[in-house]
């Protein structure tokens, strides 16, 4: 898994500027990790399909300026121009959203997650169907392990995001709560 990520990194960074890869080649490198059609098969690597344009641009921007840290993405984002941010943002936002995962969800955890998501203002920003908008990501059918990893990072303040909203909203939740929320968003029943 890590090998694939590194291969993509080499692919992206090895080409000298004079032989800069075409947009399609660079986009293919994204999907080496983020999966066919932007649906990730790699643990703790997010599905990117259907993420809002603004969210994608903001995350690439944060990786580029060092405001969000990930060994692969930090390298990937370094050479990106403002025009690249827009182009990748538009491309990613048009990839299809990920389908629900196969397998049976854990009913009690799903229900606890649903109740928590209803009491918290999650839907206010992420939309009632958790499809995301503007700087706020799509949560529906995201990888459960990635959702949990992200919420833990927000809660610890190791990831801040494009504003402090998530560190504030997760204040006071237990790790079990985060697990239930991740389970709920990952397995969200289709309306």
């Amino acid at each position, binding site marked *: 898994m890590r090998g694939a990520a590194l291969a993509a990194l080499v692919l992206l960074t090895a080409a000298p500027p004079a032989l800069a890869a075409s947009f399609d080649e660079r986009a293919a490198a994204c999907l080496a990790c983020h999966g066919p059609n932007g649906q990730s098969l790699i643990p703790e690597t997010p599905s990117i399909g259907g993420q809002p344009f603004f969210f994608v641009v903001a995350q690439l921007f944060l990786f580029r300026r060092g405001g969000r840290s990930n060994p692969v993405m930090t390298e990937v984002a370094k050479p990106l121009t403002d025009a690249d941010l827009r182009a990748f943002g538009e491309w990613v936002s048009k990839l299809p959203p990920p389908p629900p995962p196969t397998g049976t969800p854990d009913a009690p955890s799903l229900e606890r997650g*649903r109740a928590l998501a209803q009491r918290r203002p999650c839907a206010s920003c992420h939309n009632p169907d958790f499809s995301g*908008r503007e700087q706020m990501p799509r949560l529906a059918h995201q990888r459960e392990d990635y959702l949990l990893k992200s919420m833990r990072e927000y809660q610890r303040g190791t990831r801040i995001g494009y504003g402090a909203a998530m560190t504030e909203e997760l204040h006071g939740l237990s790790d079990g709560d985060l697990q239930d929320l991740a389970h709920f968003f990952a397995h969200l029943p289709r309306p």
Partner: protein
Amino acid sequence: MTASTTRRNLTLAVVLLTWVSLALPATAQQQSTPAPPPPAKEEEVPFWAVGKPKTGPGAAMAPVPAFPIATPADKLPIAKMKVPPGFKVEVYAANVLDARGLRQGDKGTVFVSSNFVAGKIYALVDKGGKREVKTLIEKLELPNGIEFHKGSLYVATPKAITRYDDIENKLDSPGDPAKVYDQLPGDIPHGWKFIKIGPDGKLYVPVGAPCNICDPPSDKYAHIRRINLDGSGMEIVARGVRNTIGFDFHPRTGELWFTDNQRDWLSEDLPQDELNRLTKPGQEHFGYPYCHQGDFADPELGWGKACGDFTKPAALLGPHSAPLGMRFYTGKMFPGQYHNAIFIARHGPWNRTKKYAADVVVAFLDKTGRVNKIEPFLTGLVENNGYLGRPVDVLVLKDGSLLVSDDHNGAVYRVSYSNK
């Protein structure tokens, strides 16, 4: 596509999404399991969300983002801004991504802080009437708080305060900073700072509440403290302060005046944000989290508390209006009525369906030091229920003109006056 057209398109997208999402809940509810939610554990009941709207426009409020690319100079909303007769607004500097706090050095350098988006400190240097934007320091975590004092630039993040000495002679290479103070809790929510050195020579540093509404120990959070410039001698001067991102000292009395942002999610029009005046340092509590806007007890934490037991605001600045930077006017350029009046930048609400503010207002004080009126000063940045720009801080330049930072566009404007 320009940043502003992108924003317009995004706004349109949000309007559409909101419209679509309003139609969704009924379907979603039909599909959901009718089983009642399990009894909530004590710690997972977010009392601040009680009464939070589940449908309608109130359910679709979210922080209003600025695009991560600064608006080009020729696309800035200069023509939209309105100021009183005799005043003029111009672009002082463009391409200052996420422009937040403003300070001026002894030699005229204007320092600009930024926050989440840029994480940088900039220096604006005059180059033949145009400003060169230098990135002075980068990769900082929420470096919103800056102060200039005796040749040094102080920089405050949620965790620590550092000092760059002789900074105006080191604009190309500031070097490593000296440590001033690191006894801060470092929480991210309301952890970003506004700092200022008072007439007593001490550095005033707020520590916000680490949440929207909660009751943290008042010696750790939700207060303003002051320290000696070597970091020693910490004392708390004001308690019950939720999140102040702007204060200044009265030019004659030396009293601390500060803006404070009140809690979210209560209602469209409650509570109002505050302008406060501290007359007895160390002895006053301004109400948070028990009492908001001086007369409104919190629906959860206010039971058993009397608003009369807390210091009332000097003035109310509107619901969720997000007053940030403020400065007493000490210059000579503006007409006499502005002398010692307070200019206040209001960022404009996100936690309100109807957007307003995003302006600079001016509070006039009477002879006893009470606020007798508040007037709009720089307006015109709200259009179609969205923001064309969002003022963050104000600064009286040595020539008496007023700078205004705008983090939405990444720009600094200059307001000047001429009676000719």
